């Protein structure tokens, strides 16, 4: 299945892209997606423990099962206001 992962803030700068498109096996959970991302972008390793993930604009736990077409985003610690 095809999953687009949106990048923001410091993570976007580390990866050098706003969106990363990944081809993942059905049933992949967020924790596994995190592993795939670190493998592909080793620069993420240092900061990845502090990030949260969202799926379809809601925060999710790392055992969330991904579905084809989900809008996934890496949410580094927020600093609005």
């Amino acid at each position, binding site marked *: 299945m095809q999953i687009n992962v*949106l990048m*923001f*803030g*410091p993570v*976007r*700068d580390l990866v050098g892209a706003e969106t990363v498109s990944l081809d993942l096996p059905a049933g992949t959970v967020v924790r596994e997606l995190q592993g795939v991302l670190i493998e592909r972008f080793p620069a993420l390793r240092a900061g990845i423990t*502090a990030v949260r993930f*969202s799926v379809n*604009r809601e925060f999710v736990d790392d055992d969330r099962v991904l579905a084809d077409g989900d809008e996934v*985003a890496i*949410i*580094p*610690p*927020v*600093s*609005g*206001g």
Partner: protein
Amino acid sequence: MSAETGDLVQLTDQPIDADRVRSHLARNGGGSSGGVCIFEGWTRGEVHPTHGPLLRLEYQAYSQMAIEMMRKLAADARAKWQIVTLVIVHRTGAVPVGEPSVIIGVASGHRAEAFAACRWLIDELKQSVPIWKKEVWAGGESTWVNPAE
């Protein structure tokens, strides 16, 4: 703007007009409000020991999620306090020193609820809404703000 409640919840890449926020509160809350609390968060001028003076902050948002969460905060605040009308506006892009990046306004029957809701809204927004700011320094460096530091 929400048609049902008259609340103004907005992300904008334009300068925030504080007078417009106040007139929104007056137009939608005047007559039944007795306490109106407005919080403005501004870019504060600072000097970094090696990078020099701060030129501006640059805000980036996950816009669709941010606006959905801001609407949810507005609804949650309404469930917690008696609110006549409220405003949540956050700016994105470059915000120079001395200009507001965020304005929260709450009009309520009495001041205690207006103060409490306004305080709660800005605290929750800073804690959870997916918006990030980068400090841009006169020396040419720029650094993402890490709230944990």
